[in-house]
């Protein structure tokens, strides 16, 4: 018997113990910490009325996992890693076994370990692993998957998913976490998503929260929450579609993207144009540059029937695939602004610009500021906004996911003094509405704070944030949820 392996998981693996680990590891718990009330003296806490058994919570756990993962991530210090010009980066990430015996290169991972830049993590049919992506999020690696860590520096983290499935939950400014696949590159825009790659290099991206940019050789798909995009080696990222579209609609997209039978492809395109819902305008917009010139006018007409082309946009320019015209039309879809996801390396959109005020309403929006907040003790450079800033410049806030839309759980960023617990509230000021919902990530000691805000209704909202004696209030417009 190998003593070291039994006690510390070190040294040559003992085959019998490895087998026991593989079998018994299936019995591990994956529950999260239950919620507690702020004060244990609270009578409800004493009675345990807040507690619901894990088995009762299980059906909701999967749906909640994305939000919990995003909201629950602590955005820790991300000071620049010391690197030497010309030398390979040897940063590493923590890896933990979820079940079975994943391998890092040729070594069986027992319990916890690390994967360094240049190393490969492989799972077999009976193993899964969890990875801490530097200090910005988590990746779960499913069975029969191979990933390679290509790079991990301040603000730049890149994996290769050769085959298999991973689930990512990232809380970082857009563009910091990238996954290469054989047929497309997935760039995180602040989100939770799953990515699967088949042995032939084709794959499927499914986004649960936020956005993911899927790109290959200049072909882009911007995939919002609730939508998916296929990819294959020949054609790259496919046309994104909402997952609640009917199966025939989704099959028709696959035909249009990858079909070889011209007559069938034509029929599928006709089906798409006839059956697209208003919500599917996102799909139709992506189709404009993807179809041949002969079909483009029909796609433009179909999109125009769902979301009228803005008066400032020329139909001819759209037909000529003029990027600015296409982007302006995108902005009218009620999703985030094209300028944001296309230029995510730069500024975030100016939330609440005058053009976003719902018709018939006049919302006295608070101007945002182009300025750089002071360095935070737990985040890298935060850019010049635009931010809402209080008068003594101690509280800074911006949306991390573009303009706010009613009914969406959207991530937001705040810079605040350390060691003060922020509080937030939001009230609609142009009509009745339930209050804004707030989920603050516990970051007491941090100066950079993230939180999820949900506005229950569109309209004109006053948002107030306090941290200690400091207060920031601003008025902004919340758009309606795109109708499906």
């Amino acid at each position, binding site marked *: *018997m190998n*003593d070291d392996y*039994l*006690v*510390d*998981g070190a040294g040559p693996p003992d085959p*019998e*113990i490895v087998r*026991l*680990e593989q*079998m*018994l*590891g*299936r*019995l*591990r*718990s994956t*529950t*999260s*910490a*239950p*919620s*507690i*009330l*702020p*004060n*244990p003296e609270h009578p409800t*806490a*004493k009675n*345990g009325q807040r*507690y619901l*058994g*894990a*088995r009762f919570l299980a059906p909701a756990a999967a749906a909640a996992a994305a939000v919990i993962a995003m909201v*629950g991530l*602590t955005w820790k210090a991300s000071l620049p890693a010391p690197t030497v010009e010309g030398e390979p980066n040897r940063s590493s990430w923590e890896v*933990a*076994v979820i079940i079975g015996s994943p391998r890092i290169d040729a070594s069986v991972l*027992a*319990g*916890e370990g690390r994967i360094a830049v240049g190393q490969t993590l492989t799972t077999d049919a009976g193993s899964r692993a969890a990875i801490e992506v530097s200090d910005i999020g988590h990746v779960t690696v499913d069975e029969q998957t191979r990933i390679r860590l290509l790079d991990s520096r301040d603000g730049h983290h890149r994996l290769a998913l050769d085959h298999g499935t991973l689930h990512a939950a990232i809380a970082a400014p857009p563009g910091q976490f990238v996954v290469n696949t054989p047929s497309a590159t997935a760039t995180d825009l602040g989100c939770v998503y799953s990515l699967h790659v088949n042995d032939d290099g084709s794959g499927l991206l499914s986004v649960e929260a936020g956005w993911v940019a899927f790109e290959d050789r200049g072909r882009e798909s911007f995939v919002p929450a609730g939508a998916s995009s296929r990819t294959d080696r020949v054609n790259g990222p496919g046309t994104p579609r909402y997952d609640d579209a009917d199966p025939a609609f989704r099959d028709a997209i696959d035909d249009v993207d990858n079909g070889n039978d011209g007559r069938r492809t034509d029929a599928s395109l006709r089906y798409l144009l006839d059956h697209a819902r208003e919500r599917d305008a996102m799909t139709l917009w992506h189709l404009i540059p993807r179809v041949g010139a002969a079909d483009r006018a029909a796609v433009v007409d179909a999109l125009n029937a769902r979301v009228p082309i803005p008066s400032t946009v020329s139909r001819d320019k759209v037909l000529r695939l003029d990027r600015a015209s296409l982007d302006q039309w995108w902005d009218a879809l009620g999703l985030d602004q094209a300028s944001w996801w296309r230029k995510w390396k730069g500024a975030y959109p100016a939330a609440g610009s005058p053009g976003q005020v719902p018709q018939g309403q006049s919302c006295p929006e608070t101007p945002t500021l182009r300025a750089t907040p002071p360095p935070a003790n737990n985040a890298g450079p935060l850019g010049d906004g635009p931010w809402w800033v209080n008068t003594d410049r101690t509280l800074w806030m911006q949306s991390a996911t573009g303009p706010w839309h009613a009914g969406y759980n959207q991530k937001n960023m705040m810079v605040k003094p350390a060691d003060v617990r922020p509080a937030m509230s939001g009230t609609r000021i142009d009509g009745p509405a339930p209050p804004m919902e707030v989920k603050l990530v*516990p*970051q*007491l000691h941090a100066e950079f704070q993230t939180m999820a805000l949900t506005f229950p209704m569109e309209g004109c909202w006053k948002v107030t944030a306090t941290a200690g004696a400091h207060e920031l209030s601003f008025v902004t417009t919340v758009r309606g949820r795109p109708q499906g």
Partner: protein
Amino acid sequence: MEHVLELGRALRAGDRLTLPDATAALGPTIRAVAAGDQEAFARLYRDYMRMVHAILLGRIPRRDVDDLLQEVFLTAYRRIRELRDPAAFGGWIATIARNRATDYLRQTREPLALPDELAGGDPIETETFAILEIIRSLPEAYRDTLLMRLVEGMTGAEIAARSGLTPASVRVNLHRGMKLLRERLTRA
């Protein structure tokens, strides 16, 4: 009768854990939890849930382990101000877990004489539960330590740091427990 090093034995002065950072940070974490800090509570849960899960899994049917796991932590949260020495948290919550498992077994009245664990048709699953039953039949200290190692994937150093046992005791429990497990697996 075999000599068994009991779980929960206090760490003696001079004993050094292999994971000093984990226990060194316990004081502020415990104080933060007492003040209602969810993040600190989640940290405690993350660090100690595997040990508590192993203790419960060695005593009660698996179907109820996750529920009791959360109950144990909520009990610890409600009583955290009773904890005088933060460094004793591991042994303290382990005791809560053992007591809760004992209460569960006292209170449970199975309406039918069903086995505690019902495996599906998968032969691997059947074998897994059979091995679990054998481990459950081992003396308590061996049982808990082996489950922490084989189910939870904890290293000997982690088991020592979390449980309050000395590393030497953990090593002995693992060796003797594994030897006994092999013998019983051979007989099974």
